[in-house]
Structures are given as C-alpha cells and as structure tokens.
C-alpha cells in the first residue's frame, strides 16, 4: 500500500530574535534557517494495517503524513501510495485517501455539518444510494443524531470531531491518515473516536496511520508502531516488543488488607510507589513468579496485578535514549 524510500524533507524557515530592533532589521534582511523535518525514512505499510507514528513534538510525524497525503512535496526520496505519487494529487489518489487533522477542520463553520457531507458527496462523486447507506451507518456508529443539522460553530469540540470523522469517511477512503484525532477531547469521547476508527478499519479493510500524543490511542489502535525522532525512524515493530525491549521489568501492583512497612517490600524488588493501601514493585521479568509467590505468602495481600511499565514512561525513555545517543 505504502512504500517510502530515503524520504527527506527540509524547510527553510524565517528566524528573528525578539525586540523592535530585530523586527526593523528583518524588514530589510531576512534570516532563514534550514530545518530537517524528515531525514531519510524507509517505510513499508501493507493494506489494512493500523500503524501508529510516535515521537516527540517536532519529530517529523505530521510532516511524514503530509508527504504521504500529497500536501507536502518531498525534498528527495521516493514515495508511492497505492501506486500513486502523492505529490501529483491525482483525482484517483485523492478519492482513496483522507487526512483528518485534529487541529484543522473541514466542516463549513457557519453551516450545519449536513451541508459539508453533501458537498463531499458531490466532490467525491459518491452515488446517492451509497451516500445514504454510509450516512445511516455513520449516524448510528457516531451517534450523530441532530448534530448534523446544527451550525458547526455551535457544536462542542467532541461533537465537531465526530462530524469531522463522518465528513472524512463519506467517500469510504481506503487509506486514512489521522493526525491527533483525539486532541482536546474528554476521556469518553476519546474512547468513542478510537472504537469508531477501529471498527472502520475492521469493516472496510482500510489502512490506518495515526499520530497521537495520547498513548492510549496508540495502544488500543495500533499493533505496529513507528517511532520517529528528529526525522529518523528509531523503532518500527510491535508495540509490545518495544515495551519489552525498553522496559523489560514488570510492575507488580499490590493492595493490602492492612498497612505494610516499606522495608518489607524493598527486599522483594525496586519499590516504585508506596502509599496508603497500594504499592508498586518493579522486578525483572524472570523474577515475577518468585516475587508474587513470596508476596502472597508473607504479606496481607488483598489484590495483585502484574503490568508492563506505563507506555508514557516507555516512550519518554525511548526519546531520552535517542537524544543521549547523539
């Protein structure tokens, strides 16, 4: 579906120090700085895959998505998306894809979303019958109800994002780029968006590429993650394997029937947290069974779970290692 070889993209951006004098100087002489956003990426994505792009701010995730969707022209390298060169933005290509930018909207601001849906039906040349069927399905799955008839400007952020998703899917794209689709949404709305996107992928076999700062989005949606840092891919593979590789230790979350002294726990492993009623021990993966056995035998345990390190911590460590190695 997607084949990328040696993709590079740099921008020349204006630079100006703060202050009136600098502002005045910049009227006559502009200083520019070359920023390398993507620095030699190779990538293959198969049809129907769900892939998460992870990386700190400015890592090159959105730039890569924009190159893949044809909005940005690569500085160098090869990009092929379902047999098309995205930068040419041919009709046949545009009808296969959609890019949802969480911070940019395509809904017509002063009109009800139903008008944007109808506009998209026309520009994507969707047959009426198919349009009606798609709208029925989207209305049900996203619980759109009366939202489609209220001016977009009067909708809440969550309601707007649901309508944005519906507008994006009217032509049933085979390739969906989602850039921070849950940004600013509350927890329940994030879950609605995630569930919907996953179901769309499963029912339509659509390929999905997602960027998000919410690790929960990536954990729930993407079996495969591509970690990008400073324009380069630093990891490409299964999420579990990344966690395993970065933080091989496991965490044992313990709840006690009565208070337990911290010293009793420190002898079992690294005590990450010790508070009222709950403590967290970090132990090597191989030692989990032994530690669990000892804890159950020696301490008044009321509840016990074994978890991997939180994804946020794993990613922080991956990025920190990346910075440390340069």
């Amino acid at each position: 579906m997607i084949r990328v070889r040696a993709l590079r993209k740099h921008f020349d951006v204006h630079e100006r120090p703060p202050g009136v004098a600098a502002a005045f100087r910049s009227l006559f002489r502009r200083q520019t700085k070359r920023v390398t956003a993507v620095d030699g990426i190779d990538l293959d994505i198969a049809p129907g895959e769900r892939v998460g792009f992870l990386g700190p701010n400015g890592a090159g995730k959105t730039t890569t998505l924009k190159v893949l969707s044809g909005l940005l022209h690569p500085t160098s390298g090869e990009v092929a998306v379902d047999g098309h060169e995205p930068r040419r933005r041919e009709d046949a290509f545009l009808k296969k894809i959609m890019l949802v930018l969480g911070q940019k909207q395509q809904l017509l601001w002063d009109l009800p979303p139903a008008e944007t849906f109808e506009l998209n039906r026309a520009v994507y040349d969707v047959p009426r019958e198919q349009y009606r069927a798609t709208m029925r399905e989207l209305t049900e799955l996203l619980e759109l109800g009366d939202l489609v008839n209220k001016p977009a400007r009067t909708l809440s952020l969550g309601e707007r994002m649901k309508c944005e998703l519906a507008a994006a899917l009217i032509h049933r794209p085979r390739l969906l780029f989602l850039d921070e689709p849950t940004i600013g949404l509350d927890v329940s709305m994030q879950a609605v968006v995630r569930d919907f996107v996953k179901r769309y992928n499963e029912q339509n076999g659509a390929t999905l590429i997602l960027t998000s700062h919410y690790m929960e989005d990536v954990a729930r949606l993407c079996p495969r993650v591509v970690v990008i840092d400073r324009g380069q891919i630093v990891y490409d593979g299964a999420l579990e394997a990344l966690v395993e590789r970065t933080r091989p230790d496991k965490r044992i979350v313990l709840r006690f029937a009565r208070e337990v002294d911290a010293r009793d726990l420190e002898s079992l492993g690294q005590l990450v947290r010790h508070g009222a009623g709950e403590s967290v021990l970090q132990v090597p993966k191989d030692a989990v069974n032994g530690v669990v056995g000892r804890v159950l035998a020696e301490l008044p345990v009321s509840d016990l779970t074994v978890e991997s390190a939180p994804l946020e911590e794993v990613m922080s460590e991956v990025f920190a290692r990346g910075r440390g190695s340069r």
Partner: protein
Amino acid sequence: MSLRNTVRAFPTLLRVGFADAVAYRAEMLIWVLATTMPLVMLALWSTVAREAPVGRYGQAQFTAYFLATFVVRQITGSWVFYDINFAVRNGTLAMRLLRPVHPLWAYAAEALAAMPMRIVVSLPVAIVAWFVVGWAGMTHDPFLWAVWLVSIAGSWMITLLVNLLIGCAAFFLESSLKVMDAWLVAFFVFSGYLIPIDLFPPRLRAAVEWLPFRFQIGFPVEVVTGAHDRGAALALLAGQWAWVAAGLAATALVWRAGLRRFAAYGG
C-alpha cells in the same frame, strides 16, 4: 484534478456557497448599508450639476451613472481574497487541497453563489430608479444592452481574478490583506466608482482608461448609460477580455508558484 469532476460538483458548490452567503442575516443587512457609496456620490454630484452640467453629465445623467454603478458593483463584487488569505495563513487550505476539486474553482463557485443575494439587493434599487428617472440617461440600443451583459461577466471575472491573485499573494507575503487595501484605494479612484472616468484630466484619463480598474466598474456603466457607440463599445469589450485573459494566466502562474511554496513550508 479533472474538469469533469469539477463540472459535476459545481451545482452543489453553488448551492452550498449560497447557503453560506445567507448564513448571517444581520451581517447581510450591514453589508447592504455599507455598499451605498454610489448613492452618496449620486446625491453629491447631483447637487454639483444643479447649477450647470459637469462635462456630459446633467442631473439625469449623474443619476443614471451612479445607479448603474451601484448595480454593477453589487453584481460583480467579490471578497474571496479574504478566505484564501485566511486559509493559507492558518493552513486550512490543506483540507481544500485534499478534495478532488481545484480549490480555485471552489472559490469561484463561492463568489458566484453570492450573486443571487447581490441581485436581490440591487434589483429593488434598479426598479425604483426606473420608476423615478425612467430611461433618461440610459441607452435604448438592445445591442449595447447585450454588450453590457457580456461586460458584466468580464467585470465579475476581473474582480474575481484580482481576488484570487491577491489571496494567493499570501503564499509569499504571509498576509495579503494590506495588498487588497492598496488595490482598493486605486480601485475607488480609477474605476469610475466615485468619479466618472471622463471627468478626469485628459492625460490621466488616457492612462486610466486602459487600466483594469476601469473595466471593473466604469466600462459596463459607460456602456449602459450610452457613453459609447457600438464600435467603441466592442473595442473596449475586447480590451476588457484581454485583461480577463491576462488575469487568468497570472492567477495560474501565481497559484502554481504559491502552491510549491506552501508545500515547501509545511502547509
């Protein structure tokens, strides 16, 4: 982006554009009040002409001229530069670029979709004027009325293309609002909107007559008020459409260069 796709989607683009144009009723009323400058100029020049005609203009001629100016401006006006400038600056142009319809066609449809509202506003003025001043000061030649219709189309095209060009200037300038401000200063003075071109000093008039501003307003007004015979009207019509052709070429060039820059900087 194929023309076939655009043609097929055009009726929907127009319908949605019309819905957008009438979304705010209060804003529309203010807009109507804000476009009455030709009527103010009519009152002013009529007072001046009460004593004696100014050039070829007596009171009846001034009335016909400025009522025609009001109608032409209403029908051919466009402000899409503002939308383009905004879309380039905040990056929402990206969403338009993802659709299989050329964004400039979509902007043209939006401008065209506003026309029915503009006609609704200008029609009562034209009817009242017809009752009050009759045909005095207007041409009676059906051929010139036909030329007027074509010149209205040309005037609308030039105004739209100026909007597209200035909107696209945002690709290079980061904001092109001030460019439009500068254009409007020249437009108000040299288009015949405030002062008929034939009242300009001869040397200035010779230059202004071939600038695009005059073909935006003055030329259609001159045709319908009988300032030109058939031959002269046709020659000027050719001049007007030459500006349309130049505007099309310039817009295509600036759009392509601008898009490369947009794509280079990150959208």
